[in-house]
């Protein structure tokens, strides 16, 4: 029993470097900033939609009527400001939760007009985890300010490992729930045959064409390739229902992350449906030692500086002459 508990503790509370969690904060922060900034005008305009179409979801369900459009706009601007501070890691203890709450609110509000898009759920869940975890103990203004007083770098600790594990867990659970919806749906396991997927993609292509959206030009050719949809159906089941296995060990986690990433790129090419967060690869970053990226850049800069100094040294100049 003790052994089992120990294993569970070690599984959920592994040690990890502060920089790994910080890189996740930066990656998610960059994505959410791009998402909100790129959709700023659209989301502001959505706030002026007819109140008759208002169908609040999530935290916005506390409202019975839409907010005045000006308030919606102020909240979007506040989210952008908090997002920049989140990215920089400034006063994260206060700004992190505030940013996560604002992001949850504005995206819930954006989805409260008769349609829930499923491409933003994970980004918000990840921002919520990062917002309330010590994700700015490294690679942040907070860390820079602290190192002025105390040069000691934060050690690897479970406080960084647990949120990373949680991000991975939330990611795989979301995929698993998606898979269960297919199996529990009217088609059951026969969904994997690919026929349902082909019909879904066909319906999506028709509505895009008739409503003036941009569909995948490949689809007219692909429609008759039943084998392709059968392969995609089976792979989708493997990625979604097999997602929890990704938590078992590093290698499985990385293999799963790679397959899920490829699946979303396949969806873009065949269906022209863009899950931008997933396409960026950021949801899967928690499965990798992402702290190596800034360390690699730092090493590169040091090597370049070293070469520059060597090139300008008197000895080198003498050799040249």
């Amino acid at each position: 029993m003790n052994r089992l508990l120990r294993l569970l503790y070690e599984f959920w509370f592994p040690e990890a470097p502060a920089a790994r969690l910080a890189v996740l904060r930066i990656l998610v922060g960059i994505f959410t900033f791009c998402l909100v900034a790129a959709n700023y005008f659209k989301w502001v305009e959505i706030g002026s939609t007819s109140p008759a179409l208002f169908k609040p979801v999530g935290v916005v369900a506390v409202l019975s009527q839409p907010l005045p459009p000006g308030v919606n706009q102020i909240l979007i601007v506040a989210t952008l400001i908090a997002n920049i501070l989140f990215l920089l890691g400034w006063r994260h203890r206060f700004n992190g939760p505030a940013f996560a709450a604002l992001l949850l609110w504005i995206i819930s509000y954006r989805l409260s007009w008769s349609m829930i898009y499923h491409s933003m759920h994970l980004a918000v869940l990840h921002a919520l985890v990062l917002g309330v975890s010590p994700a700015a103990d490294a690679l942040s203004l907070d860390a820079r300010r602290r190192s002025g007083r105390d040069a000691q770098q934060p050690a690897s600790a479970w406080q960084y490992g647990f949120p990373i594990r949680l991000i991975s867990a939330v990611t795989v659970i979301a995929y698993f729930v998606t898979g269960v919806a297919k199996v529990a749906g009217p088609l059951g396991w026969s969904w994997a045959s690919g026929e349902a997927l082909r019909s879904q993609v066909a319906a999506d292509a028709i509505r895009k064409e008739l409503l003036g959206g941009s569909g995948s030009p490949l689809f007219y050719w692909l429609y008759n390739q039943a084998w392709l949809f059968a392969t995609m159906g089976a792979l989708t089941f493997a990625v979604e229902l097999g997602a929890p296995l990704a938590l078992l060990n590093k290698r499985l986690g990385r293999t799963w992350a790679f397959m899920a990433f490829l699946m979303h790129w396949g969806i873009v090419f065949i269906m022209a449906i863009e899950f931008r967060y997933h396409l960026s690869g950021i949801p899967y970053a928690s499965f990798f030692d992402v702290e190596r990226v800034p360390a690699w850049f730092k090493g590169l800069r040091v090597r370049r500086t070293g070469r520059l100094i060597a090139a300008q040294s008197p000895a080198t100049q003498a050799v040249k002459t």
Partner: protein
Amino acid sequence: MSEPILGSIDLRTSQGAFHGSRHALLRKGLTGLPGFLLMGATLAPVAQNWNPTPKDNFPFSYYPMFSEKRSDTYVVSYLVGLDGRGNRHTISYSFAGSGGLNQTRRQINRLIREGKADTLCRSVASAVAKEVATPYSDIVTVQIVTARFRFADYFAGNKTPMTEQVHASCRIARGERTTEVGP
């Protein structure tokens, strides 16, 4: 009884100070509890699959996309523009709403369902009337239609709907008030 469960696990705070195992256990518990609740909340919507009237939500969803059973036909509501010669033109969903294609499509369906197709038609017609670029500048009538297509025919090149119902039709009078001409 063997050593405490966490006795040999190296526990540090973010400041690097060591703490006793009991204190660390409490901290892990306090940190872990909201995390486990979040995981539970992410998993909980799975129950909607067995609910007779499932309800989707945000940020916790049961992700129903692509799980629907479809027949070999598809029914879709959309906007059609007719020019002076009766030629049909696609009118972008963006004339009907600002929330993206699928959200606007749902809003169109909802307005048709609620008998407000004429209101939608007038709104789209007045927006189209302001356009100066082709094909919109050639459009003289806007229609809100629902059509049924057979997938196999459509992707073989036959894009004629099996059935089509016009819910509302509005004539565009550029520089004048848009008039409804009925379904």
